[in-house]
């Protein structure tokens, strides 16, 4: 029960963070901040993939309706949820995943978190910008936006992870 409340809090936190804060950060040169994927990342290891995809869709479509990105975030988050088990099995520790642990920096360590989240975020962003720009002739723009946003969002995700690290919830 407590975990349900906890994840509801995370859902609302990342939603509000994305819509009211991340959208207003305008640095230029294609840098955009994506924090919604962190929510899908930190769901427990034994979460059903259907639950994950539905939550991704819901979170994405809610954020989209407030940001005029019409289904782009939803689509990318569903992709993120779909690939999460695959990427997790790529970086499987020797004795498998412990269901008591969580897929966070605190529980799984630097190397594991950097690799899995990096790969998943990259997938998410490539998919997002290909859909948004929708023209392969502008592949340079897709590449630039993906790279700049990746660096920025990756950094902020790590800072947020460190922020929640001390807190023993």
């Amino acid at each position, binding site marked *: 029960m407590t975990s349900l409340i906890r994840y509801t809090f995370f859902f609302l936190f990342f939603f509000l963070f994305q819509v*009211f804060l991340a*959208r207003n950060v*305008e640095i*230029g040169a*294609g*840098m*955009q901040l994506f924090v919604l994927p962190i929510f899908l990342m930190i769901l427990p290891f034994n979460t059903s*993939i*259907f639950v994950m*995809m*539905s939550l*991704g*869709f819901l979170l*994405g*479509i809610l954020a*989209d*309706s*407030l*940001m*005029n*990105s*019409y*289904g*782009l975030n*939803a*689509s990318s988050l*569903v*992709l993120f949820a*779909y690939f999460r088990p695959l990427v997790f099995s790529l970086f499987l520790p020797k004795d498998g995943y412990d269901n008591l642990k969580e897929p966070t920096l605190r529980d799984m360590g630097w190397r594991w978190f950097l690799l899995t989240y990096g790969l998943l975020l990259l997938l998410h962003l490539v998919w997002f910008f290909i*859909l*948004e*720009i929708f*023209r392969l002739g*502008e592949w340079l*723009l897709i590449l630039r936006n993906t790279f700049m946003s990746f660096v920025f969002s990756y950094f902020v995700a790590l800072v947020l992870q460190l922020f929640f690290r001390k807190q023993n919830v």
Partner: protein
Amino acid sequence: MKNLVAFLIRFRVFLGFLGLQLLCFMVYFQFVTYPRTVFMTTASKVNGSILEGKKTFYDYFLLAQTNNKLQAENAQLRSVTFDNYYKLQRPEFYKNDTLYRQSFRYISAEIIRASSQQRNNYFTINAGQFQGLKQGMGVVSQNGVVGVVYKVGKQFSLVKSVLTSDINLDVIIGKNEIRGILKWNGKNPKIGSITGVSRDIVVPRWSEVRTQGATGIFPKGLLLGKVLTKRSMEDQSLWDIDVLFSEDLKNVHSVYIIRSLIMEELKLLHKDIPFDNQ
């Protein structure tokens, strides 16, 4: 039947994924292809009021700035009054008792949400059907052209900003009124690009770019920006001209929507242009 069920069970994850993606694409293409639907965008009532609440909060930080801008604009408007009128060249018919007829009217609105980082950018403004807005009306601020009304809700509307790939505004450059088409390449929100100008025409640097007014959406001669640089396009005998926008599109807060009183007449006329059937 048994095989079908087995197939469905085996690929249930992928099918679920496909189903949700289809749903996303439906939302996406509904937005792109049917500009009338307001559902799930910031032009809808629920989302609009959420954003307006946020806007009223942020407004307090900008009160002084907005005031200055409005004062400057008032002063300018007092000195220039006949810009939006055209002369009726019929001195014989004096019955109207006037020489000028108004062809554009302005409706004021506030921007409650804006973006300038995406490939195609939209503004949400707090005026809609109640204020008499219609799809396709022009939107300007005091410093220049901002965009065109894209979707109209009851109280809010969505404006397609000049920072979109297919805005295609017809513009004129400099004193010689060279004609071109304005687009945006998605790289820098301060710079737009003009195509369609032949390379044998001299385009001086810093010449002003203004609206052409051919479609009747905007009056002729509204400022858009200045020519920054020009490059020759590959494989074509055309210039690729960079324009520095006169309005800082990251910091627009109040705009005017132009209601054109001559557009219907222009549309009717243009309908009669015969097609060449060769």
